[in-house]
């Protein structure tokens, strides 16, 4: 009843090409941003912000990165976590080399290092396709994971192999390190994610996004349209790894702290992000957010939800049951809606348009 586009006429191509051409969508987006920027910091407690919202934002960004590669360009990657790690370690090295530069700038710049490494490991993609490429990206995952442990230069020869998150400030408010409040860290994450999502949306809606999708849908035809396959694929690797790298730097500097850096960027994390992308919906930015919310919150829901329902579980068993349920849910989900949450979202909107009189 309220979600109708009747009466909204578009008289310019620009209006027609907008990412959200329907007015109600734009209002909805404004409300979501309002809640994110004002509502959550006001209402949410420290625990909620630091162990639900910040992980959600970090995973969303990584999922957007992988979605650009897998969803838009059709190249499966199992090495996302490694590229995130490159971002985190690059950021750490940058903070030691340039202690005076603002940490937000360094987080963004570390994404560039990740992008460079991504391009390097993307080079085989011209000759290798499909699952073969997926396996090839495992080379990146295991090699980089090895490097994070075995190349002491990366963690400044620290005996424990951990990296330290230094205290950094902006306008005398500390952004990172022990004294940074969850709210501040949340704001930094939110701003980065919103800005980078906007860039990603611009890219995928324009010429570059079209070339990516053309490569995904029919690479031969794309080449005959004048799209250079290698360039398009490498650009996708670069942009994707940039997002992953920034997400990785955020993960260490704004969420985890450096202590566990050498054992978070594992293949398991790569898989988790791939789940987010697939369950959220391949080739959909909204889907990346939905998928990240779903996968990131699942263990928490299991942990607190099952005892609440009266299923008594000990810690270890709960973890095992969670594994089982996650596996079952993934299968169930793929059967019910192989195109992911984003498709459900669209169907929902379509239904809403004709509600309450669908005929």
């Amino acid at each position: 009843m309220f979600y109708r586009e009747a009466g909204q006429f578009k008289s310019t191509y620009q209006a027609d090409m907008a990412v959200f051409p329907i007015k109600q969508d734009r209002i909805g987006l404004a409300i979501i941003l309002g809640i994110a920027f004002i509502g959550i910091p006001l209402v949410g407690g420290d625990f909620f912000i630091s162990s639900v919202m910040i992980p959600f934002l970090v995973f969303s960004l990584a999922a957007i990165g992988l979605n650009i590669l897998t969803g838009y360009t059709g190249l499966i990657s199992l090495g996302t976590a490694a590229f995130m790690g490159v971002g985190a370690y690059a950021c750490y090295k940058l903070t030691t080399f340039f202690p005076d530069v603002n940490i937000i700038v360094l987080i963004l710049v570390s994404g560039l290092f990740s992008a460079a490494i991504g391009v390097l490991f993307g080079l085989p993609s011209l000759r290798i396709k499909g699952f073969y490429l997926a396996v090839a990206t495992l080379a990146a995952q295991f090699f980089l994971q090895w490097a994070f442990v075995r190349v002491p230069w990366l963690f400044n020869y620290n005996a424990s192999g951990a990296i330290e998150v230094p205290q950094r400030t902006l306008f005398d408010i500390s952004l990172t390190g022990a004294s940074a409040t969850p709210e501040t860290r949340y704001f930094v994450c939110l701003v980065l994610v919103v800005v980078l999502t906007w860039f990603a949306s611009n890219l995928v809606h324009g010429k570059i996004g079209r070339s990516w999708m053309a490569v995904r849908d029919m690479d031969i035809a794309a080449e005959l349209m004048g799209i250079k396959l290698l360039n398009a694929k490498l650009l996708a690797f670069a942009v994707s790894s940039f997002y992953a790298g920034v997400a990785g730097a955020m993960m260490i500097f704004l969420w985890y702290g450096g202590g566990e850096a050498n054992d978070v960027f594992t293949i398991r994390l790569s898989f988790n992000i791939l789940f987010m992308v697939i369950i959220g919906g391949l080739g959909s930015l909204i889907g990346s957010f939905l998928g990240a919310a779903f996968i990131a919150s699942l263990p928490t829901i299991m942990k607190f939800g099952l005892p609440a329902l009266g299923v008594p579980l000990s810690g270890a068993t709960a973890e095992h049951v969670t594994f089982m349920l996650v596996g079952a849910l993934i299968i169930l989900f793929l059967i019910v809606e192989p195109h992911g949450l984003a498709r459900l979202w669209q169907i929902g909107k379509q239904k809403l348009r004709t509600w309450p009189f669908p005929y």
Partner: protein
Amino acid sequence: MNAAVMNVTGEPVREKGEVLLSVENVSLRFGGVKAITDVSFDIRKGEVRAIIGPNGAGKTSMLNCINGFYQPQEGQITFKGERRQKMKPHRAAAAGIARTFQNVALFKGMSTLDNIMTGRTLKMKRSFFWQALRHGPAMAEEIEHRRVVEDIIDFLQIEHIRKLPVGKLPYGLQKRVELGRALAMEPELLLLDEPMAGMNLEEKEDMCRFILDVNQQFGTTIALIEHDMGVVMDLSDRVVVLEYGRKIADGTPAEVKADQAVIDAYLGVAH
């Protein structure tokens, strides 16, 4: 080459320009299999050139050689005076060769509009950073090309499917979108691989109309492969006939129709 072409049978021949593309002694092999053997012909500016022949005669392989998807082992292809033996498909595209495919090769996950917009890729110059902002010059460029694409959509009468994903369109419309995508490249030479395969009579007539319009309004040179002889005879200025990878005839539709080798190839010979 002389612009004025004399015709032996004395039929009126449309005046055509100089040679746009010439194929000289091209041979193509896959391992031991010879797909094309020593074929030569040319395509003149502004004409409609048909390539016909029985199944497996090497027609599609010939098109693949022309736009660089296959590299012939022998012979040369000259396009706009530039001789080459090897050319990457994307360079062929940049030089002005567009094509459609026998089995529709659209980007199935994208809308009609986006599909045709990809045809403009080579003409869009704004850098990555403007693209990331999608404002100012990048937006202006996008709108400029959208205008061209809308004209093509208008021309092909596919306004109603503008925003639908092409994967779900009926076959006839898909073929039309594919033609639109090729036209968006503003090619000098348009290669059409069986543009009317699997269409009903009405759709075929529409498609013929579009092809002739493209040829006459935009002056685009067209090379097409087609099995429907009626269509070939009506549309084309000159016809080249392939059989088992060799050229067996070349000339106006009337000449080709009367050629004994062609009749044998199509109807078989009594042994």
